[in-house]
């Protein structure tokens, strides 16, 4: 059985897990790679030969002309067997993890790759020294920023989005939350067992026993791993840390090193940092929480 899986960086794990069954010849159609190689059109021409087409519901497919051959209506024209799946995004373990862009809409890179900490960006914009910023990583500040509510929000968001895709992930996410470890490396990079879970749901739809699905390699672990901050980790019952693993690195960097590295990146781009509503809110809350002087009569 031939299955095409179209989407973002998550699909290589899904493909690998499907292949493990021995019944599926799965093939990844990585949108980023195809676009970079200029092969979106030519590769799309091969899609009619597949028994099943699995595609992530990603908004950009409808926005960029290069992705036009992968729009749902086009796929449904060439195959009766199209399955729409969600892209697995969950901010609950990493509410501080975001990305910021410059005036040219390019992501400003930090020691954590494309990711930034909203707290570090806000502190940088407030002119706080790096050492002071490090001291803001605590339960009170997280509470003010509503980081402890983020898992519920992320659950709601993923539930609604996955239902819209026709593949409700509510029970899967509930099970993943009880694994005792985070099921996400970052806000949009799932851990292997979550991708395996998604692949099992696909398997059930295409008539392959889910029990045969397995993902042994955690391929997104080679990318950035954002820590689950200790106070949040305690509440989510997973391992907490303030050590960041940069993409491609074997080891981790400390929070202090992360802040220094981010500050250097933001200094280079300071004039053109674009303030998202997330950053603006974070900055306002931090600013309001800080006390520079106590008035006494």
């Amino acid at each position, binding site marked *: 059985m031939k299955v095409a899986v179209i989407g973002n960086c998550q699909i290589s794990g899904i493909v690998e897990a499907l292949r493990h069954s021995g019944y599926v010849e799965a093939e990844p159609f990585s949108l980023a790679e195809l676009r970079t190689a200029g092969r979106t059109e030519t590769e799309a021409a091969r899609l009619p030969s597949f028994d099943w087409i699995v595609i992530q519901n990603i908004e950009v497919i409808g926005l960029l002309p290069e992705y036009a051959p992968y729009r749902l209506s086009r796929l449904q024209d060439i195959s009766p067997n199209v399955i729409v799946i969600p892209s697995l995004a969950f901010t609950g373990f990493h509410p501080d993890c975001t990305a910021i862009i410059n005036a040219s809409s390019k992501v400003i890179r930090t020691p954590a790759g494309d990711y930034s900490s909203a707290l570090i960006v806000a502190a940088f914009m407030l002119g706080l020294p790096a050492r*002071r910023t490090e001291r803001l990583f605590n339960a009170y500040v997280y509470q003010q920023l509503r980081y402890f509510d983020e898992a519920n929000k992320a659950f709601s968001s993923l539930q609604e989005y996955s239902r819209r895709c026709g593949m409700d992930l509510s029970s899967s996410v509930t099970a993943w939350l009880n694994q005792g470890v985070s099921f996400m490396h970052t806000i949009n990079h799932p851990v292997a067992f979550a991708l395996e879970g998604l692949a099992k749901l696909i398997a059930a739809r295409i008539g392959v026993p889910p029990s045969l699905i397995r993902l042994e390699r955690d391929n997104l672990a080679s990318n950035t791993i954002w820590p689950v901050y200790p106070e949040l980790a305690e509440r989510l019952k997973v391992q907490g840390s303030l050590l960041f693993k940069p993409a491609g690195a074997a080891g981790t960097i400390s929070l202090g090193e992360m802040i220094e590295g981010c500050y250097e990146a933001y200094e280079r781009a300071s004039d053109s940092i674009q303030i998202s509503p997330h950053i603006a809110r974070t900055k306002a809350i931090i600013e309001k929480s800080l006390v520079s002087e106590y008035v006494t009569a």
Partner: protein
Amino acid sequence: MAEAHTEHFDPVTHLPFYISKNEAVATAGSCFAQHISRALSFERFNYLVTEERPLTPGATDENFGVFSARFGNIYTIRQLLQLFDRAYGLFEPRELVWARNNGAALDPFRPRIQQGGFASPDQVVADREAHLAAVRRMFERCAVFIFTLGLTEAWVSQADGAVFPLAPGVVGVEESQARSVNFEAISMIGDLKEFIDKLLAINARVKVILTVSPVPLVATFENRHVLVSTTSSKASLRVAAEEVCKYRPEQVAYFPSYEIIMAGGYRPPNFADDLRSVTEEGVRRVMTVFRRHFLTEAEAGRTPESPIGAIELGAEDVSRMKAVANVICDEEAIGGSGA
């Protein structure tokens, strides 16, 4: 008759909560609070200590366990509020280290924590970081926080209003630009409400017990007799405690240790012959009443944690999370919130 009345005097009628023997109890406050912390350790209370031993090379083995963390006496409400704010990085005082005449370095916020001070400013800063981490653990882990309100008069930094527990000159420091203040009742009420709100923000289940120290002032900045200042101070502190109990009636209780001790006046057996020091007998009477009313044999049941589930999202949440789901790595982030 008068003696018998004092011995059995018990002015507690109603409390909003009890302390189970398995609940962690933390304490802070003035000199009198040390009596309470010692008594709790001896009684069957689960006394919480989060800073038990020297954690940095400059720290000596002094004053651990006197309170739940090694902060020394916290005399004023503003000092307590600032302890919280310093622990959570919200306030960074400009005066960070005091230099004593003999060259030793002191932490201005706990200058008597070790007799000889620290060997260098770096040691002060390093030990304070470890200390403030212990303070955070205390605030976050305690089930009950007992604070004894001690004074209204304090020394503060002229630079930013940072409160010092004692005058710099008392510990041989000449360079500090400290000035004296006598906090008004209304500002203390505001500070105490703010502290309680902040504590509840990080520890939603905590119960707070406020007491007022019966120990009279030894001196006053005000141009009047120390007894007059004492009366004014105790009245203001008592009002602050009262107002905050009304503000958070389910989480904050007042315990009348001041009233129990003062029922007999400034004289034995509650006060020593100096008419200022509370005697062990006085403390025993206070703690007998405290134990009778607060301590329950029943174990506190664990409040079930709410499982993660769907909640309503705001517009900003919706667009932020949608952007994350729509990211294609190595592509430009759509909407600026993904990666």
